């Protein structure tokens, strides 16, 4: 089936099998390997992307369901060579160890800050419930999200 997706602002017209999962479209056809496959059973959040601005798990979405939609992956967050405040904060606060969960964590945090720009610590932990960090670096992930919220409230992006 023919599909047309706009990924990080770039248009992709491709022929895909209906059974293809969005995560494989992004990684294999889009060449965007920032999005990871972890559990492959919708529980770890490593595959989280924004579909029309809203966080979804791309291992549990068919490419054909995203036909005509806008997709944002972690590669699409920076602007003019400048990292997104969430990326900056994960860097500064050491919010990553091996980095495998990081793209998903950042996009899930993006979803949180979209719906709640000034979250409390329990709200951050609750919002990241669907994202697992196998390095278990949760403390610094929470610190990173707090710092990003502060920077973003400052109006830098």
């Amino acid at each position, binding site marked *: *089936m023919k599909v047309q997706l706009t990924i990080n602002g770039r248009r992709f017209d491709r022929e895909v*099998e*209906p*059974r*293809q*999962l969005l995560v494989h479209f992004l990684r294999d056809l889009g060449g965007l390997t920032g999005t990871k496959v972890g559990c*492959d*059973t*919708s*529980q770890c*959040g490593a595959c*989280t992307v924004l579909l029309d601005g*809203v*966080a*979804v*798990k791309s291992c*549990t*979405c*068919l490419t*054909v*369901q995203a036909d005509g939609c806008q997709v944002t992956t972690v590669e699409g967050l920076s602007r003019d060579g400048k990292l997104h405040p969430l990326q900056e904060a994960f860097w500064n606060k050491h919010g990553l160890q091996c980095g495998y969960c990081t793209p998903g964590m950042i996009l*899930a945090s993006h*979803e*949180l800050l979209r*719906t709640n720009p000034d979250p409390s610590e329990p709200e951050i932990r609750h*919002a990241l*419930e*669907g*994202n697992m960090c196998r390095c278990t670096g949760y403390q610094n992930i929470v610190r990173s999200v707090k710092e990003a919220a502060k920077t973003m409230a400052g109006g830098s992006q």
Partner: protein
Amino acid sequence: MFPAKFDYVRADSAADVGRLLAEHDDAKLLAGGHSLIPILKLRLAAPATLIDIGRIPELKGVSVEGGALRIGALTTHAELASSDDIRRQAPALAEAAAQIGDPAVRNRGTIGGNVAHADPASDLPAVLTALGATFHMTGPDGSRAVPAESFFEGMMMTALQDNELLTAVEVPCQAEGQASAYSKLPHPASRYAVIGAAVRLTVAEGRCTEARVVLGGLTPIPTRALAVEQALTGKPLDDRTLQAASAATADGLGDDLLGDIYASAEYRKAVAHVYVRRALAAAAGRLA
């Protein structure tokens, strides 16, 4: 994990769904895909065709009509949780939807898919039963409405036929002197309900005139805790009554209870009263 091959068609309207279902043998409807896609990936099902209903405008949206909420089948869990109408008129539903899975699951999963799938560990079947909801569906023989209490027939079995489309869920608006609440023991990994307790209380002149207490998670289908309901009816909703009533939770639950390696059936039966108690206290608190 890749699903087995299937054909994919997209429906534009409810009428279109009827036509496509008649044209395709062995077809399955696809809404948010958050129950169906995992099943296809595990190859527990391999339908020949998926009919995507996810973009049908008439199945979306929440409205208040004639004393009831009308909730389109495609309304997502995130929309249920954030709708002002639902938070005001059916607080237990908003509360339960907010506790489903995680934010990304709530952005995709729909109320229609949740009840059509009828997983015993789902949250919405118990809540919608407690709230006295009605399910609207259409099929080749026209439209019909089925009350929640006769909709769920068994584990993953409902009154919905293979050639029918669930179009909307109707939930009565909260009446004067009424309150509802939901309390849940979530599975630590998936967040599905290990135990879910949904209650709706009605009071007049300081006494409970009606109590609906429904359990999910540990029973194959939503199950009314009749002993608890009886122990509340006619009484003032003070701490002692709530305590005594919730202690009756296990009575009448029967032996057909679910368990897994996380929580055995015996354990669930033993602690279910805690969640009933919490839901009762929350609802009674809203009435105070």
